[in-house]
């Protein structure tokens, strides 16, 4: 008989093997799904894993798609490590896009080199501001941040809709819900000629580096980790629970805000009412699959981006429905959460010794 036996110490090996195990299981499940659908499993794998990165342009698209995921996920990880559950990155992303768009539209006449830095700042601030609401309500009234941040996603969506249907609507846009296209000074420069990969990717790498230093090398980061793992110990050591909550939420909000800025100043080039791409929610999966660690998040965001693009290609060339990407994303997280049990437990065969 199989049974789980608690480990005396969390397994570091499993900590890192579990995402690999989850990816492998997702792969196997994918093969099974293709087989069940009467599609060639190898062809399916080809379109999901190989075809999207077959050339430089494909790689650039993968990095482009991974950029918002990386940014949102690294910001969330800071909070998640401290048991601060911000699940409203989707709304903070939208507010970041709004903040950046505000600057771009207000200074539409100017071609100053300061516009992009100002947009970056406005995006980060707007995202952080949106996250400050749950932080304030949590620290002041102990209102649950999961629910408040989630509610604010819907408010943000409606707010964007009001802006692009109302005051920010492009007067030359035939009444469609969109702002004017940003002028060149408000667009992020591309990194590689002929691709869409833009400076936002560098922001994302910077955020990962910053996140790594903060979480793994700084004293505040250490305190936050302790607060997450052993709240009592943290209190005993005199760490302020309020500060932990504020830092956790604000860093998540600011990072998601930058992601929103990079989306409107990057591939979109304008603000529209179609901002609900789900990056903020997908980033939660990325953060978990990446073990709340900067390097892991880098890999996990690439994997998620691959699943998105692979899903498109599987549709384009194999006539598979688009929803297959969501099925795979769900499976990946299921398998990861399931595999994680082996971090704290080991599998034993036979009966427990009394």
């Amino acid at each position: 008989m199989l049974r789980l036996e608690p480990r005396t110490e969390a397994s570091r090996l499993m900590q890192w093997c579990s995402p690999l195990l989850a990816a492998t299981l997702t792969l196997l499940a994918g093969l099974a799904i293709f087989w069940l659908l009467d599609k060639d499993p190898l062809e399916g794998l080809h379109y999901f894993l190989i075809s999207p990165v077959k050339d430089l342009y494909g790689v650039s698209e993968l990095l482009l798609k991974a950029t918002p995921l990386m940014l949102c996920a690294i910001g969330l990880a800071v909070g998640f490590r401290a048991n601060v559950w911000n699940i409203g990155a989707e709304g903070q992303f939208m507010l970041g896009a709004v903040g950046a768009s505000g600057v771009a539209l207000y200074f539409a006449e100017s071609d100053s080199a300061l516009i992009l830095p100002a947009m970056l700042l406005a995006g980060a601030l707007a995202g952080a501001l949106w996250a400050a609401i749950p932080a304030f309500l949590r620290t002041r009234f102990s209102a649950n941040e999961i629910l408040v941040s989630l509610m604010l996603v819907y408010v943000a969506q409606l707010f964007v809709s009001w802006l692009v249907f109302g005051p920010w609507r492009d007067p030359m846009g035939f009444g469609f819900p969109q702002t004017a296209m940003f002028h060149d000074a408000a667009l992020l420069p591309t990194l590689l000629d002929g691709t869409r990969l833009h400076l936002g990717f560098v922001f994302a790498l910077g955020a990962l580096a910053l996140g790594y230093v903060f979480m793994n090398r700084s004293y505040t980061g250490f305190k936050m980790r302790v607060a997450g793992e052993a709240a009592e110990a943290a209190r005993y050591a005199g760490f302020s629970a309020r500060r932990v909550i504020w830092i956790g939420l604000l860093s998540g909000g600011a990072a998601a805000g930058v992601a929103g800025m990079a989306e409107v100043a990057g591939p979109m080039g304008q603000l529209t009412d179609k901002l609900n791409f789900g990056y903020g929610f997908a980033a939660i999966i990325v953060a978990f699959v990446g073990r709340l660690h900067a390097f892991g998040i880098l890999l996990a965001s690439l994997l998620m981006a691959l699943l998105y693009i692979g899903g498109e290609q599987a549709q384009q060339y194999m006539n598979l429905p688009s929803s297959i990407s969501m099925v795979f994303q769900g499976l990946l997280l299921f398998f990861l959460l399931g595999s994680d049990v082996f971090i704290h437990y080991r599998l034993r065969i036979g009966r427990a010794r009394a």
Partner: protein
Amino acid sequence: MTDRRQFMLSASAAALAAALPGSLLAQEATRIGFVYVSPIGDAGWTYQHDLARKELEASLGSKVQTRFVENVAEGADAERVIREFAASGHKIVFATSFGYMNYVERVARQFPNVTFLHATGYKSGRNFGNYNARFYEGRYLNGVIAGRMTKSKILGYVGAFPIPEVLQGINAFTLGAKSVNPDIEVRVIWVNSWYDPGKEREAAMTLISQGADVVTQHTDSTAVVQAAEERGVYAFGYHSDMSKYGPKAHLTATTHHWGEFYTRTVNAVLAGTWKAENIWGGFKDGMVRLAPLNPAIPAAVQAEVKALEEKLTAGTFHPFTGPIVDQAGKERLSAGAVMDDVALGKMDFFVQGVASRLPNTR
């Protein structure tokens, strides 16, 4: 379904192979890509485009090979999907939603040898045309029927968002109804979503309980027609013939037909005669039609509608012919004048006869 289609394709290809000399077969099929904004489903905007894609395949046979991607968000992803079509040897790409416009423009610049067609936008380029249909012509005819069929003189309209295309439809419907029944009023409810069957249904139910006995919608589901069937009032379909969702309620529908246009465009591109244009076709071009009329419509009304339909087809009648007066009583178009396409494209008012107010957006 998919497998069957593929089987039929290969079966017809085999039949062709038996009949045709080898030289024709050697010619490779032209690949054509379609980008859809929502799942195809069984009725609605994307469904009509997919129907047209199948018509295209049927009419050009082995000369073309089509592929599609559905549910493509109107954001950065769209550019990748469009570009992937262009980069993988597709010669023509149809992008079928407004939000793809700027992405099509960018990809079109990178792939000068590929032809791009974008639906419902306003930009174009050397190898990038746009196309749309004058749905309002069908709406006007729906209005005439509604004006004749209503007893309560209240007509209901469920709208998605107050953008010009939707306003054209509401105004044409109102003008049509008023042309035969000057006392009617049209009530409009916005659901602020293109697709939320629950809310669309509630909006229809609300209109019906406020006295509307004919309802229609500019949203993407069949919920309004189903609600009308349940409550025993009349309804019009939109996009697709929705009669199977409400056999008694469904008077007719303003249906979209892109098939001929797609075939014509592809033939022109293959022949090298295609030029970028802004296409805005109506009854005259066969892009808008009425679904079969419900037998509940009296013969006299059917004849009246047929006559108007012929005039639209002949191009001798325009629904937006002055005088057109807005809700505030201001004359927007003087008597006898015909509204030009720019004014139509920028429409931002309700005509007299619409009882609801436009939401304040500024």
